[in-house]
């Protein structure tokens, strides 16, 4: 195993008690410092795969090695090294953002400067606000801030941009880019292709509990074209989203 591989997943299987096979033998490696995307339609097994790696869901079979540690045998050691953003996680009511950051840091046994961390995600002026006062994009950025309190080796983001407007989405992409620049590996799930294309170094496409393709976005497109694919619609030099952003600007509407 080369040291450039930070996460190694082999033959991961999840079969629920009712016999449903959510993940049917998934294998992939994630390189240190890259943004790795897991794509797929709803119900493809993306979230289940992530939750098994994160130690939130017991696995049926397979091996997971993260930062040299067997995640199945040492789920708590793994949790200390990773940051997890859940698909729909809420935070406790009646606590301010800075207090929540402090609490989460303490749960990892770390000390952070809440204001510095909130500044990193553009929420410094909201430090004394409650989570319920935040907009959708701000909530997601705050949620990402809580994943960074322990200076994690890998950050897992489950559909971080779902439900956000285009401006907030672009803004979050920038934030994910900054996390990557800090040298932190990012594993994210999404079902937005444009997001995968502009954010991810490599992507795995999942369908029906299996990985059906794994490569860089550019490589996957070239492979498709090489198979003689022609798009159904004529190709424009710009997309509708480009038009939208051109008309409404890129500034955040939070």
């Amino acid at each position, binding site marked *: 195993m080369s040291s450039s591989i930070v996460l190694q997943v082999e033959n991961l299987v999840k079969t629920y008690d009712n016999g449903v096979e959510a993940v049917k033998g998934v294998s992939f490696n994630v390189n240190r410092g890259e943004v790795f995307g897991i794509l797929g339609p709803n119900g493809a097994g993306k979230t289940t795969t992530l939750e098994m790696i994160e130690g939130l869901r017991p696995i049926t079979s397979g091996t997971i090695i993260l930062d040299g540690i067997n995640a199945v045998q040492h789920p708590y050691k793994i949790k*200390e090294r990773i940051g997890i953003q859940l698909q729909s996680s809420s935070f406790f009511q009646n*606590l301010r953002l800075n207090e929540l950051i402090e609490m989460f840091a*303490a749960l990892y046994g770390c000390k952070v400067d809440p204001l510095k961390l909130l500044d990193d995600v553009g929420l410094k002026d909201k430090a004394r606000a409650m989570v319920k006062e935040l907009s959708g994009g701000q909530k997601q950025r705050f949620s990402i801030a809580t994943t960074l309190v322990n200076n994690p080796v890998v950050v897992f983001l489950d559909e971080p941009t779902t439900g956000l407007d285009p401006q907030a989405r672009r803004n979050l992409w920038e934030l994910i880019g900054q996390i990557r620049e800090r040298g932190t590996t990012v594993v994210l799930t999404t079902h937005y292709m444009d997001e995968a294309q502009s954010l991810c170094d490599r992507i795995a496409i999942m369908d029906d509990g299996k990985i059906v393709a794994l490569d860089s976005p550019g490589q996957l497109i070239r492979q498709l074209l090489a198979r003689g694919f022609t798009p159904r619609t004529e190709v424009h030099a710009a997309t509708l989203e480009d038009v939208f952003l051109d008309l409404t600007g890129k500034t955040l509407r939070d």
Partner: protein
Amino acid sequence: MKTVKSFVAMVKASLKMFMRNKGTIVFSLLLPMVMLSVFGFLSSNSGPAIRLAITNHSTTEMAAEFEKELVQVGAFSIETLSEAEAADALGKGHVDLHVIVPERFGEMKDGRPVPEQIETRFNNGKPQGAQIANLVISQIVNSLDRKFTGNAPMLSIKTTGVTVNDLGYFDFVLPGILAMTIMQLGIFSVAFSFVAWKLNGALRRIQATPIHPFQFVLAQAVVRLIVVIMTATVLVGFGAWFFDFHMMGSYIDFALVCIIGALIFLGVGFSIAGWAREETQVAPVANLVQLPLLLLSGIFFPAEVFPKWLQSITNFLPLTYVVDAMRKIANEGTSLWELPGDLLGMCVWMAVTYTIAVKLFRWE
């Protein structure tokens, strides 16, 4: 060490969160204080003075002396009324006893008083006060008789005032209201918040951190215990300050019973939180548990009023043990270790509620 720090941080944050919830403060402090005040005011005008009306037709020295002695009796409130006014007041129940001193009372003839009678009239429906008053009056008349005739008393009574534990209804009801508050705090504060956290994903977010889920549950329990001790301190202090609540026993024993009681009902709260899948399920089930306990555990009135067959059930309810231990300690000065029955009952209930809680609890 790291674990301890995480735990303390968890407790601190949870306490902050808890205290910022206005509903909690209202239910655990304000409402019980209002109830205490109501019961306090209701029971504070117990034992009013015996109300006498006096009509004095005599102008003698002895008659004046008699009236003076009567006024000095602390248990009487005395008005001087005409015979007609007094009869009216007695008829309306404003006066308990009407004393009429006849015109020739106290007149002397050959060194002896003229035989005369003091007449008293009382309301047949309320004879208690009047009988006491009659006794006191005849005693005064006898002593006046001796004083004015110079006869040495043949027999006399020596009375000494003794201070006794003057336990009133308030002393009975304060432990009841405190036990009720602890029960509600235990059941509702845990059940509602855990179900909400379970549904909105906050619990799962905690699971994503290296803290063990059990530590999180424990931190929540510790927060509730801190609030219970605060509530007990405030309510007992409030009762003692404003309504003369008597604590005969040990404060530590009393606090221990509060904590044990809280632990029992936290177990009930965790059971409901573990079982419920929706927030709307919490209130009906929690009330199904707490309302019968509230009515049958002798919170507001002694359980002795129930028929025997019912008592054989109510005596074994968890809240009965808690409130009984509280009353024995506060009202009778018993130590907790002298109450093995209550102690055993509480421990059994704790074992029962936590067995159910562990069986029912789910994180999602």
